[in-house]
């Protein structure tokens, strides 16, 4: 059955019956707990990514790798990251593979890709709450592309680490990045407060209030200060 499915993948494209590749989903379920079978399946899927199969076929492969991909998948997926058409679905799989290798693949690709794809990579690092990305994100905060800088700010906020907060505090907000840096700072302050670091949280809220904040940020920071003073 799987041989037929992999045959179907060779010519799979939009408009074809998706049931032709449904056995891949069955294989994921049936190989649960069987490392050898999973590896065999993964190897066959990676082989498809290295061919000239259609974008649709490769998308379908990446959807399966999202569930079963391991460190072994990373080089093949990483090679797709600069490709404007395949980058997202490569991340679809890569973002969910645990471990530092996947994070490193995302980080390594950042200097090599167009701004729009950079944002995709940053969003995947954000989704992983990747603390190892903080130094790179701090550099990207100063990007001349405002969308990239905003993206880096949001990622630092989601990571919420004290070093992320420090990076945001040291940033020089522009008109384009001010809101993102403020939101990220608020997120960091909440994280600090949740970990009992009231003094640091308070300092963050006070910094925000001193920076001519917008109404939403002023409200949020004032509420945050109240929370710092509570019980």
């Amino acid at each position: 059955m799987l041989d037929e499915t992999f045959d179907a993948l060779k010519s799979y494209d939009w408009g074809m019956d998706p049931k032709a590749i449904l056995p891949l989903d069955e294989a994921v379920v049936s190989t649960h707990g069987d490392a050898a079978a999973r590896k065999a399946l993964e190897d066959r899927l990676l082989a498809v990514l290295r061919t000239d199969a259609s974008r649709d076929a490769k998308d379908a492969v990446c959807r399966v790798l999202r569930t079963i991909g391991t460190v072994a998948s990373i080089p093949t997926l990483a090679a797709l990251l600069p490709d404007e058409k395949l980058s997202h679905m490569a991340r679809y799989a890569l973002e969910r593979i645990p471990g530092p290798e996947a994070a490193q693949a995302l980080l390594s690709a950042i200097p090599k890709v167009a701004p729009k794809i950079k944002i995709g990579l940053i969003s995947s690092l954000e989704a992983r709450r990747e603390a190892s990305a903080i130094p790179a994100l701090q550099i990207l905060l100063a990007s001349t592309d405002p969308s990239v800088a905003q993206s880096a700010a949001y990622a630092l906020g989601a990571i919420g680490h004290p070093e992320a907060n420090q990076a945001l505090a040291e940033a020089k907000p522009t008109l384009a990045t001010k809101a993102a840096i403020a939101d990220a700072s608020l997120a960091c302050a909440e994280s600090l407060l949740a970990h009992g670091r009231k003094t640091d949280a308070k300092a963050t809220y006070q910094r925000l209030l001193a920076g001519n904040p917008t109404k939403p940020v002023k409200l949020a920071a004032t509420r945050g200060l109240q929370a710092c003073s509570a019980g």
Partner: protein
Amino acid sequence: MNHPKATRRDFLKTTGLTAAAFGFPTIIPSSALGNAETLPPSERIVMGGIGLGNQGGNDLGGFLGNKNVQYVAVCDVRKSVRDQRKGKVDDQYKTKDCVAYNDFRELLAREDIDAVHIATPDHWHAQMVIAACRAGKDVYCQKPETRNLAEGPRMIEAARRYGRVVSGGSQRVFQDYRDTVQKCWSGELGQIKSINVNVGPLPQAACNLPAETVPEDIDWDMWLGPAPWAPYNSKRCSGSFSTAGNSWRSYSDYSSGGLTDWGAHHFGGATYAVDVRELQPTDITYHDEGGKKFLTFTYPNGLLLTHNMPGKGNLEVVGTAGSYLHVADAKAGEIKPAVVATPGANRPAKPIPGYSAKGGIYADFLNCVKTREKPFRDIELAVNSSLLSHLAMLAYTVRRSLKWDAAQQLFPGDEEANRFLDKARREPWQL
């Protein structure tokens, strides 16, 4: 222009320090009154709508007809839709002032807008709710409010951070299951032990519809947004309420079939009836008995919520004092109560939570915008309800039982299940 300070503070409750100081609606100049009923401008809530197809159009009508609202902006990625909706708004006020947008970010950037309602396909909900909160807007968002497990906490976080009123959008939770709610909350059934929900189906196999020429009317890239790229097909983006493969509701890149689409209503009604709206289950037990697959959700208080349990009706409740089967809307008169009283098993009635104002879920939201109370379907309650659909979807996908840690928002020690918490967003979209 006058700014009547006393009037604003009269209808706003101040919680703590800041809600009244920073959260009140914008002033509408008298020139914008048009033919609207003459509620004082300072008391009207300025609104815009995003995603105005089938359900969005219904929501627009609901808000537009409310005297508390001044509707100023429409947004849809289809020009014909936004033009038609703009026309409806302009007709209401006998002006040409409503602005039509393709890009929701431009609408959210308007400082005069206090609140927005969102009825895009599900894959946009989290993105837009969070952006709206960051922009200082209160939000009414259609159900299902989330498309996966990672989105809910981010939406709640944004709402709380910015002190926003965020309401989910299931009007059926309050109005469709009243009989069951009444029976449960009255104490007649005693302590509730279990409730069953029948809803589905799961989404169709991956959407692989063929490419069609993109009509000039639609911004296809914007319609897709954070979802994976795919070629345009009219059935892929149809807003039909069907889940049979001819609508976005059918496909997991945009929604999750009937399980989320009607699950939002039925799970919402069930958790309301048995008073677990504020809780999340700890265990999801997968059953496969003779080919019949169903689930049991176990709550921290011991309550069992089953999904598609064979032999059980929809919202069929079992308590220590008896059991009750919800009256389906279409079967009025065929009440099938099965109350078997056990002496001494009744418990005192509890007051039933409901809307904060008359006029349905729209009025509840608008009233909460003024009072800054949490609405009946507050985003946290909405997320807890939608969560059940996503947990069910995953259990049926992996065909095994799961454990859920509500505090950590993950499946403890289950790496495979945790991969399903979120899906990578297509650049340049990021929560």
